[in-house]
């Protein structure tokens, strides 16, 4: 199959990659760029584990072709924070026990940050709605919701 050369700006770094038109963004991120923090759970757009930011909006990488994203800016879990300097959402997930196996967590946190970017002061219902497209089998969601509440509060204070 013919390949084309695309440019992706991932977590601030520019990559040039030869891809087939049919290659999923999830596969390119994970297996070509080595960014395995983006997880693939269902490959049919339901579970949300593979969610990243594409040009600032959350999107499922199992439903996107890499070739469609030529020139786009992408942020994955690896671009959010480090162990010593966590993003407030990462810190809140840790504090509130918002994860167990950790597989859905990257996508869940991207969905949460997407919400907080749009709505810095969400109520519980807003949060439930925002993460209802992301499946978690471990937590029962309650501590995820509490973590997002904590992160929202922290981020509001930071803004002031």
């Amino acid at each position, binding site marked *: 199959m013919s390949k084309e050369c695309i440019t992706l700006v991932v977590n601030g770094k520019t990559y040039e990659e030869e891809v087939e038109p049919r290659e999923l963004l999830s596969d390119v991120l994970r297996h070509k760029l080595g960014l395995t*923090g983006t997880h693939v759970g269902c490959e049919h757009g339901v579970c949300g*584990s593979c969610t990243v930011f594409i040009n600032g909006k959350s999107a499922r990488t199992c439903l996107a072709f890499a070739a469609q994203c030529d020139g786009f800016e992408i942020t994955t879990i690896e671009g959010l924070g480090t162990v010593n300097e966590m993003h407030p959402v990462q810190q809140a997930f*840790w504090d509130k026990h918002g994860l167990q*196996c*950790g597989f859905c967590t990257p996508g869940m946190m991207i969905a949460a940050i997407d919400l907080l970017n749009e709505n810095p002061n969400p109520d519980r219902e807003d949060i439930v709605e925002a993460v209802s497209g992301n499946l*978690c089998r*471990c937590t029962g969601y309650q501590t995820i919701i509490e973590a997002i509440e904590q992160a929202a509060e922290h981020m509001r204070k930071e803004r002031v």
Partner: protein
Amino acid sequence: MTNPKNRPIPASRQREGADQSFKWIGKSMKRVEDPKLLVGKGVYIDDVSLPNMLHAVALRSPYAHALIKSIDTKDALALKGVVSIMTGEDVAKSTGVLPTFSNPPVEQRCVAVDRVRHVGEPVVLVVAESRYIAEDALELIYVEYEELPVVNDLVEAVHATGDAVLHPYLGDTNVASHRNFSFGPVDEDFNNADVIIKRNLRWPRSGAQPMETCGAVASYDCGQEKFTIHVNFSMYNYVGWLLADTLGVPANKLNIVPVLAGGSFGSKLFLHKVPIIAATLARECGQPVKYIEDRIDNITACDAHGSDRVYTCELALDENRKMTSLRCEVIDDYGAYFQFGLGTHGNALSQITGPYRLGSVELDVTAVFTNKCQQGAIRGFGAEVSNYVMERMVDAACSELGMDPIEFRLANYIQPDEFPYYIPTGNLYDSGNYPAVLNKAIELLDYDGWRKKQEEARKEGRYIGIGLAACQERSVFSATEFWMLNKDPGFSLTSTPESVTVKIDQLGCAVITLYAPFWGTSPETMATMILAEQLTINPKDIAVIYADTDHGLPSAGPGGSRYTAMIAGALVSASGTLKTKLLKVAALMLEASPDDMELRDGKVGVKGSPEREKTFAEVAMQSHLFRLSLPDDPEFDSGLTVSSTYDHPLTTPPSEDRSDLGIFYPIMGHMCHMPVVEVDVETGQVKFLDYVAVHDCGTVVNPMTLDGHVRGGTVHGVGTALYEEYQYDDQGQILTASYADYLIPTASEAPPEIRVGHVETPSPFTEFGIKGGGEGGRMGAPPAIASAIEDALRPLGVKADFLPLTPARLRGLIRESQNLEE
């Protein structure tokens, strides 16, 4: 058999009691596993990549039951990038049958030979340079099938003969096993009964469905003739050698390397097909091969569907409204194979009479083969079903006899002063305080308050219901249950051990080696807390690693809610030995008597002399490097590393005829779940208004993570009760092969808040009194939710005797009852 009540209680081997003040145990600790997971650096199976690695996919059977007449792979092989293609026959030349605990063995192969028995069963394997190319090749393989009659219905399966028989070499029947187990004076209790309550109950086929599927990356070193398999398989240090046997190599020629598992809930307990496929292909190709199930593979062929049972039950009550006996006839649809035999019923028999004082019980179980994916382990392992059955029967008795469900339970409970308590099957309940759990739940929920609200809502035409389920959570299994119920057990008994190695390194920090993987629970945090408790070491100075089978020690890993109790046992042993050496070496260094020494905050010091002490680092350096400064006695040999194996703390063999199952699952947790639901009678939708779950898991190690398990398991139970079902049509086609059709609860379906409470009745048999708690939520939620729905719809007389109660089905029940009224 002798009346179990008259049997002696085995002596406890507990060394560390619950009645002491703890620094770490019992306090919430943030997980040490989390930082790497939060920044995307956890390594799961699909993150493993080896040089020259190839990618495998399986051609799945489109038929539920058919003979394979021919397979043409020529075009597929010609596709550029395809490296190898193996049919079942090809695979069978080098690789044997998959391991099974059934006896007589039910033969399963990683790729079907001659016959397919369910949709999704692998028929051909393709290896290519990329998964894309491998999947392209699937389109170029032509398989000719001859269809056979499909067995889909579990009741009809009992009578199937001829071509409809899945395993003709086992006889002209699809009955995999039929056994009758009777414990205590069942007939007498029923003859003397004042009332007999009868119900037919249905438990649906559902699954664990972790977010990560099963996968393996295998390589074969033809120089050493040795396999290495990376796989998200939990029991690798327990039964990994069985995979070596399937591959036809000695166990020392197979190294199984653990990776993080993205959830299991039982389903990754015993992986065989996936690692065997990867290993077979790696040997064939001479290159590493990755094989990862996609979601369709996982739903249709993961070998881990849950129990699928139809029950006919009778409950006997005496004139005082005390339950005396339970009689169940059950048909269980095991699917196409039978890897654990009747293990899921063995599990249930450990607690089949629930928290109640029934004197006898009978279980007549018929296991059938059908053209579906086979059953495996999933949170509860069959005992979640018997919890549903017992509680449904209790609710039925209360409802038919007009008794209060709380008073009735309190009157029938085993009382706190009766423990340890033998139930009729021969299993022992170690400890418990069931009234305390129920009373705490009532208080937490404000039960009376909700009853008032319910009454007011009824006046407004709203249907609010308060559910109640009082259930057992057996924990710390002896794996004997996997084969105990085989007519001719192929194996003798096991104590199901667990091991740790603890090393204090040269600088005084600790490394704990675990022999089972992380599968979403909190093994590192738990082990860290317990070691910190025992050695007074700071948790931040403790690291945890996972050993492969090359470095393996006996371990069965997480499962059956055993891991915390078992690791605690192994850590008490290891830390005890280490402590002795630390005290002795420090005593020599300080010229004091070892008897006068103590551990304090990561130091070893002389009691009463705060200034006379050595840090762990000083003592460790001395022990590791300066042997010659220490006495010439083997106890001072270089190093500070101890490995300890902890055998099951309390297990006894069953009788030969299985009229007594022995003690096999004795560390008995308990829970009371009280959900409040509102049913929309127009749509059948169930909404949670409140949810209280009070658990007694003995001594709690980490309240935060235990609560996490309870909540997660409860929402899994919400799925089982309301949404999830693997549905097959008459042709054995699965109708729920994706997440568009197999509905896992999202944040919108979960109860907004699950309020968790604890009662702590320590086990007298485990270290610190710990009991397991990993499965509890799912073992209590389904009957509690059924009870709440029935309570809500009491004015309509709807019975919640089958699950899942999807909106459409609930609406159907409501419609039926309204039609009856009219």
